[in-house]
């Protein structure tokens, strides 16, 4: 609250009677139904944005559960099949001494997705109130979440490449498990969720303070 108080009052576009096009960025006077440059529908605030954010976020979280409980990789080595979950694989890598790779896998498949869930949930919850983090901090958080989302796919790529390359019949075979699909879905859902978030709502709380 202390931080919020110190935040300077801002003049939002809505208050100034303007609306920006989300597609091309051209600014119009409020009340314009469509962008005069690109023809996109003009809306000062997307009412259903938060709903979509929550919906996709829940979908991503649901998909994340099987992604961690089911095996990610099915490694068949001389007739012996080994199943590795994401965390199990990271721990095994750690046991083999390659802690660097283990760290990458762990952060890409566990830390980033979970951090994303928390960040998106926080942004969605705090959208209409000026809480904890100042306006700019929230904007930065949103940008980071949107940027880092795609890097979670690194695990899926590894699985896809491995299972495409390592196919030596009896000697060694790697097949993707159910978790690979679930994980990819989970990452995709959270990315959609982040994209659906309307960052303009982050500033509405300060607008109220100003009046």
């Amino acid at each position, binding site marked *: 609250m202390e931080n919020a108080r110190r935040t300077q009052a801002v003049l939002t576009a809505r208050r100034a009677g303007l609306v920006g096009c989300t597609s091309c960025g051209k600014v119009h006077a409020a009340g314009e139904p469509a962008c005069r440059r690109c023809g996109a529908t003009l809306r000062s605030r997307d*009412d*259903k944005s938060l*709903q*979509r954010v929550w*919906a*996709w*976020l*829940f*979908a991503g979280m*649901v*998909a994340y*559960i*099987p992604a961690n409980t089911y095996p990610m990789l099915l490694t068949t080595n*001389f*007739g*012996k*099949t080994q199943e590795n979950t994401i965390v199990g694989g990271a721990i095994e890598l750690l046991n083999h001494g390659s802690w660097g790779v283990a760290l990458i896998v762990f952060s890409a498949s566990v830390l980033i997705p979970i951090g994303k869930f928390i960040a998106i949930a926080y942004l969605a919850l705090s959208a209409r109130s000026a809480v904890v983090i100042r306006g700019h901090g929230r904007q930065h958080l949103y940008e980071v979440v949107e940027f880092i989302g795609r890097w979670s796919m690194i695990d899926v790529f590894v699985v896809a490449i491995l299972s495409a390359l390592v196919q030596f019949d009896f000697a060694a075979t790697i097949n993707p498990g*159910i978790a690979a699909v679930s994980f990819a*879905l989970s990452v995709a*859902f959270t990315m959609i969720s982040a994209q*659906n978030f309307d960052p303009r709502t982050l500033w509405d709380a300060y607008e109220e303070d100003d009046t």
Partner: protein
Amino acid sequence: MTEPRPAELDISKPKPSFWRNLSFVWLVPVLALAISLGLAWQNFANRGVLVDIAFQSAPGVTAGETTIRYRDVTIGRVEQVTFTPDLTKVLVRARIDKDVAPFLDKEAQFWIVSPKVSTRGISGLSTVLSGVYIEGAWDQEAGVQAYRFEGADGPPLVQPGREGKRITLITDDGSLISEGAPVFFHGVEVGRLEKPRLTVTTDSIVVDAFIEAPHDRRLNSATRFWDTSGFDVSLSGAGLSVNFDSMASLLAGGVEFDSIYEGGEPVSPGHVFQVYPDQPTARKSLVSRSNADAVQIAAEFGESVSGLEPGADVRYGGLKVGEVTAIAAQVEDDETGPRVRLMANLAIEPDRLGLPAGAGAADTLDFFEAAVGEGLRARLAATSMFSAALIVELVEIPDADPAIFDRAAEPLPILPSEKSNLPDFTATAEGVFERINALPVEELIEQAIKMMASIEAVTSSESTRAVPDTVVALLEDTRSLVNDDAMRALPGDIRATVAELRAVVSELKEGGAMTNLASALERADTITADIATASAEFPALVEDLRAVAKKANSLEAEELVAAATRVLDSADKVIGSEAARDLPPALNAALDEIRTTLTELREGGAVENANATMASARDAADAVAKATESLPDLSARLEKLVAQSEALIAAYGERSSFNGETLSALREVRSAARAVSQLARAIERNPNSLLIGR
């Protein structure tokens, strides 16, 4: 006065319906949740049943990897390998597919499959690479589901659910019967033995056997089992015979069974059979079948019964009619004091005696009473020449001392006995052995050795080795014979011929002053024509010459030819004679002589001089040609002779020094023959070459 004003209405926008406001995007998480839950539920619902299998040890069983298989299809996976609380066993916890689990009842068996090499082959090879697995076996009927099993050491001998009959065998010797050994029927494997075990109360070995359907129908009360383990060597009149059933039974043991008589009663599962040591014993056991009906009698033998044992046959006319059940000594007092009587108890089967079926003891005793009156007696007999075992024979001896069948004797009726001819037989056998012993086998061998030694001595002696040398010497002799005077006679003859020829030539030389006669004549002939008229002296000369020529003409060439012919004839004769035939090499020398003679002739110059003169003697030469026609004949004969010698010598084998000598001699002979034939051909072509040397 203020007009009352209505309270300001708190106007707010109508709250949009929660449902209307709801975005369709919410379908996505709902769907995801539904799918996830559905998957989880399916997974949980399809989860297998956890069962515990207790093993003595679990080599190679790994949690999460080792599979459970049924008929080689994976139906589950080991989840945990722990110990029973008291550490006595390994507890393998495995999850079995839901579909299969209901079939796992108390009968189900599990065992660990690992590579194994046994007398019955190699099994479980596939597990070398893939690791061990646990195989299960159970029947095809769902029963009361069980969750706890005792693991077996190996596959069950009988797959649960197999049709068949389980029986029990009793044997005295378990050393040759092992678990899994085959059970044969006429050599075909129809079942297997299980683990042999000792009974608690007796020393017998009890082993369960499972006979597979439909062969279990062959089991009945007439079935006898016998041991076919190892191999069986028997020496009999038919020779030595070695029998064994199969390699597997040789190594692991085995039993065989057969029905030894018709009409056995069917047996129920668990029936106990005795295993006999071998097939003959098993077949002999037949008699025990009707021992109950047997009529007991006794026979007293006044001689040693050593070799007679309980179970020995009682034969009547060679046919077994019963067996000896006991041998006992009985002390009896009579007038001279206590006396020991040797009694043999005999169990006689009435139906085998030929008595009508249902004949009782009384009928049998009646028969014996009558038969003894006719001369029936008991007698000891040997079973075979090589065995000391005795049997009891019932024989009819018409002139036997009268005796009676003591029907009232106690404890058993006594059959009178006759002294056996056993000692005689033994004596005969002994005699045979003695005779065999007395055979001078050692001397025979010694002589043989001696003979071999002398043969060896002969072969290795110097004189034997000298034989080829002798032959060579003989050949040398032959050759010297060729060189002797008699042979020289041939060249001598030819030499004489030559001498005659020479004489003729010298006669020619003397008779016509033949020096340069030919050239003179030729020249004269050509000149004469030219200068005949020119010169007055010439005609006279010519006349002279003509006279000379005439004289030359009239020379006795005929005689020369005749002489030559004679010579050749005689030569022919000589060559045709035995001496010449034996010694062809000498011909060579002779021919050499001829050749030298001819050379001499050539060198003598006389021939050249005689050339022109001889032109007119051509007629005579023709005659010579005719004479030479006999030469091919001669050479043919020589060839034949050579061929004969060759054949003869070829028989001496190749490459010996003798042979080498012979071959070289033959080669000489052949070249001589060739020279002769060449000479003959030359003479044929050009008869006067005999004279002129070309």
